[in-house]
């Protein structure tokens, strides 16, 4: 009789569907993470060294692209909007390149406990402050909306979980913590298409973002041999092998070239 046959059919169908589903939806946040298995390390102030340097830009920088902030009347309202009409993609002052993320990409032994302080990603005048941001695995990142308009923080992470948060109100705060090292995570606001930011997540504190004068400093680096990487959103990465000696300050120069 049909009922028993359909029982059998049903008995197979459900597990099959469930299996298909579970196969489909996992894999999201299960990126194999070598960092997590490393032993915990601490900075020894007695031996810690410093890496300093500048990032220069050779050639003519591209003309800044203009931004049409009138697209949202709330955006122009902020007085401290320093350069409201251009993008922050390439910022060059006197041949020095800002917004370069400099970090130790190889040679760091162990992983470091996250800094207790939180970092802030502010949305002010329909821009991200800062434009490039470094944060440690497990460190708290506070996303703030300082504008009286809607922002959504759409982080296109690949190793970490992609997230897309809306902040409707001025002063709204949202906490975000990254579980895995990932350089870089592009962040965009889909309401204001020009808004872009990049987040570098590392399991150690040895990273910096170049200031408007192109300078950077990495403090508390244990002596050793490292690969130092400089990343720029438009010009890609440059790398150098460096040796850091006990309590010494190592100077490094990176030079990006106009294509």
């Amino acid at each position, binding site marked *: 009789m049909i009922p028993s046959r359909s029982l059998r059919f049903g008995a197979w169908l459900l597990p099959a569907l469930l299996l298909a589903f579970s196969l489909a939806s996992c894999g999201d946040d299960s990126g194999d993470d070598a960092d997590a298995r490393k032993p915990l390390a601490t900075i020894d102030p007695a031996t810690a060294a410093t890496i300093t340097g500048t990032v220069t830009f050779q050639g003519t920088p591209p*003309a800044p692209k203009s931004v*049409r902030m*009138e*697209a949202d009347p709330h955006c122009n309202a902020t007085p401290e909007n320093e350069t409201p009409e251009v993008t922050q993609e390439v910022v060059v002052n006197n041949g020095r390149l800002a917004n370069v993320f400099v970090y130790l990409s190889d040679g760091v032994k162990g992983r470091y406990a996250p800094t207790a302080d939180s970092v802030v990603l502010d949305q002010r005048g329909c821009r991200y402050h800062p434009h490039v941001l470094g944060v440690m695995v497990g460190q708290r990142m506070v996303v703030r909306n300082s504008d009286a308009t*809607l922002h*959504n923080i759409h982080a296109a992470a690949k190793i970490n979980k992609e997230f897309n948060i809306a902040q409707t109100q001025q002063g709204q705060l949202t906490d975000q913590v990254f579980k895995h090292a990932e350089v870089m995570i592009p962040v965009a606001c889909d*309401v*204001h*298409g020009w808004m872009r930011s990049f987040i570098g997540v590392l399991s150690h504190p040895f990273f910096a973002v170049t200031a408007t004068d192109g300078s950077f400093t990495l403090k508390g680096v244990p002596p050793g041999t490292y690969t130092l990487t400089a990343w720029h959103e438009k010009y890609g990465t440059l790398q150098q092998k460096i040796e850091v000696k006990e309590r010494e300050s190592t100077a490094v120069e990176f030079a990006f070239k106009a294509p």
Partner: protein
Amino acid sequence: MRARLSNLRSRLRSIGRRAAPPAFALLLLLAAGSEAGAGPAADSLSPGHRWWLPAASTAVAGRIDSLFILILWITSAFLVLVVLLLVAFVIRYRHREGRRAAHVTGNVLLEIVWIAVPAACLIAIACASNGAWSAMKEEFPRESESLVIVVKPRQFQWDVIYAGADGRFETADDITAINRVDVPAGRNVIIRLMAQDVIHSFFVPQFRMKQDAVPGMTTQMWFNVPAPGTFEIACAELCGLGHYRMQGRLIVHAPAEYDAWYAARLREKAAESASAR
């Protein structure tokens, strides 16, 4: 019921005036109370008619409104008929002791009547509709005689593109804007929609026009606004968490003003590309 009809009539008369339709107003004042009376002052973007159709700003919009009102009349007539009959029957034939209902099973003639009359009304509505539909969606003005604007919506903004000095799209001298469409009054404008991610819908309430922008294909709409003004563009198709903020402005300039605006944008663009070189 007579009161209802007269309400309806006055509602129809009120088109073109600021007065709120009394029937609706009566219903809603109950809750809205004083708040309804002391609503925020209408600015230039407000419809000008509270709780009724926004002011029609194009000829096609006027046509759609008259269709709407035609259908409103016909459907209201049917509704009033049904309500009247229902109320009358419920009162007249309510249960009374000692009376027996009539054993009536049907009536072919009546069935024919209530098939034929609505059918005639529906055919009339359909015929009236189809003319306006053709005018809106099928009989596009010639591109050579119109201003063509490409709008590429994305989550959650309207990327607006004008052909630059070369008169062609997808070239380096395209003029771009975000969330803002400037058009001249009295000229046919064709909006060519190409969505960049999900489906959006270009909606200007005062034009009574809505056209979905579908990724992977190009859709078009056209309008001709006789007088200058400022309108809001809304996204009418759910497109994600910022859907409600996907708001643009459509500014209709007097023709000379528009030409000046366009010339200024051309100069701006030329200066920009010169500095890039």
